[in-house]
């Protein structure tokens, strides 16, 4: 079966695809940090950041609107920020009646709310682009080179590999349960909530044991191929001149955005 729906990588041969993964990771993080540093209401700077994303979209060969189409994933979280609309003192923009309260939206509140949402929306687009043009194993290599502890990157690469295997197992378990979730015509059934929770817990337990036993087999397979407790990997990435060039251009862009954002 296929849980490939999980894979966010899009094949391509663009400049972004071939850019060194370390540079891509660093640039992405720098971009997100830059967004966080921009003050509320720095519209020009936000626009510049968006421009950079548009350019990156084009350079990736995935189409101008690529990251935009997928960027709404973080939107529901905007609910968490909704209170700032009403809570920051300022000039009233509009007001309405909600149940028994008069809610007043202030200009300062609006400014802050929109800034938060825009920051988040810009950041998530960059992250979307990163995984769309970088195969995940290469991101793991990059993390390795960027001094993330080996044990973590090793866990992450196993996680990535077996995510697909275990997700398929979960899917099959759920299907098997669904297939037997029958009802006799007219009768009221489905079991109690507690019973359903227990069945689900049993499925989790079953999955745990299968995963545990699989890890034994994988360990055996590793031993058979000479594993002695220390993992060796080989993924030499070499920086090319173009890597540095593209990296520098993005950094200059970020710098300009920061300056523009701070102009009075």
């Amino acid at each position: 079966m296929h849980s490939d729906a999980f894979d966010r990588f899009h094949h391509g041969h663009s400049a972004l695809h071939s850019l060194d993964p370390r540079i891509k990771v660093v640039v992405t993080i720098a971009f997100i940090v830059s967004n966080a540093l921009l003050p509320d209401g720095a519209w020009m700077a936000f626009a510049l950041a968006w421009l950079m994303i548009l350019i990156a979209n084009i350079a990736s060969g995935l189409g101008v609107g690529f990251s935009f189409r997928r960027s709404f994933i973080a939107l529901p979280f905007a609910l968490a920020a909704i209170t700032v609309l009403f809570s920051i003192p300022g000039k009233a923009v509009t007001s309405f009646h909600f149940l028994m309260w008069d809610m007043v939206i202030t200009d300062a509140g609006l400014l802050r709310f929109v800034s938060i949402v825009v920051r988040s929306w810009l950041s998530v687009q960059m992250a979307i682009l990163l995984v769309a043009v970088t195969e995940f194993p290469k991101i793991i290599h990059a993390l390795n080179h960027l001094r993330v502890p080996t044990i973590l990157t090793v866990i992450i690469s196993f996680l990535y590999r077996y995510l697909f295997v275990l997700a398929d197992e979960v899917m099959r378990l759920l299907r098997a349960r669904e297939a037997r979730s029958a009802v006799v015509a007219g009768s009221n059934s489905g079991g109690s909530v507690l019973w359903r929770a227990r069945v689900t817990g049993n499925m989790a337990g079953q999955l745990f044991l299968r995963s545990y036993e699989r890890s034994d087999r994988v360990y055996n397979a590793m031993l058979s191929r000479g594993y002695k407790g220390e993992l060796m990997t080989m993924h030499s990435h070499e920086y090319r001149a173009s890597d540095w060039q593209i990296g520098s251009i993005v950094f200059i862009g970020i710098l300009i955005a920061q300056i523009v954002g701070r102009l009075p």
Partner: protein
Amino acid sequence: MHYSPALLHIPDGFLSLIVSLICWAITAVVLAMAVSRSNKALGEKQVPLMGIMAAFIFAAQMLNFPVAGGTSGHLLGGALAAITLGPWAGMLVMTAVIAVQALLFQDGGLLVMGANILNMGLVTAAIGYGLYRGVSNSSRGAKLAVAGVAAWISVMAGALFTALQLWVSGTSQLQVVIPAMLGVHALIGIGEAAITVAALAFILQTRPDLLNEKSTAAQGSRGWVVAGVVISLVVVLLSPLASAFPDGLNRVAEDLGFIHTAQSGSGPLAGYSVPFFADASFSKIAAGTIGALVVLGLSILAGRSLQKKT
């Protein structure tokens, strides 16, 4: 099947830079300890074990069961990971899960990943393991009951930490975010507790050797019990307090200079309150306590009913 994002993963942009960095710092310190402990204490066999267990937690989060009205309960897994794998390994496993969710699915941001790991990985593992470790020599029923309570509190703790970070960042208002987050997660936590208890019961029944005293999972020091209990107490006491007296918490934070550094100037919380939450008082504490007791009761019942069947 599609992966559905959970409520607790904060995206980038919702926490201020300072809060993000502070959380990263705390997370980095704890993870450094976890890494050094794991490198020392665990055999080489742990490498594939932890990797595949991380995939297990990820996959188990896709398991759900219908509750009512189209909603469904599912698992976060922090407590389960720590109980079955031990505290340090549990933390590393949860960290990998959260990192992949953020990197691969944009479920949770990168700059705020430190906060997400702290909320959903480190705190949940400490509570889950700490409380469970306290009863790891007791009867099966007691173990399961405590695991259930620990799972519930761990979810509440994640919610509380998330709410506090959002507030200090000036993104949410304390009076709203705390009751809202805790209210929703009090329910989510019940699903978490039920699944955790049933999964542990399943393991205890079929492969008890994986959870006995000799397993790595049981070898964490007694210090964890203290850590787990302290964090739990903080959560249980602070949640109702924070929702009952947000102004007090506000003032403390202001005195510490916390809020102003974090919010680039504008004092979003200054002397403002939303009427429908501000005047709540001890009723909130009572509600929180009753919630905890209900979960304790349910867990004991579940433990009993599971025990009868064997």
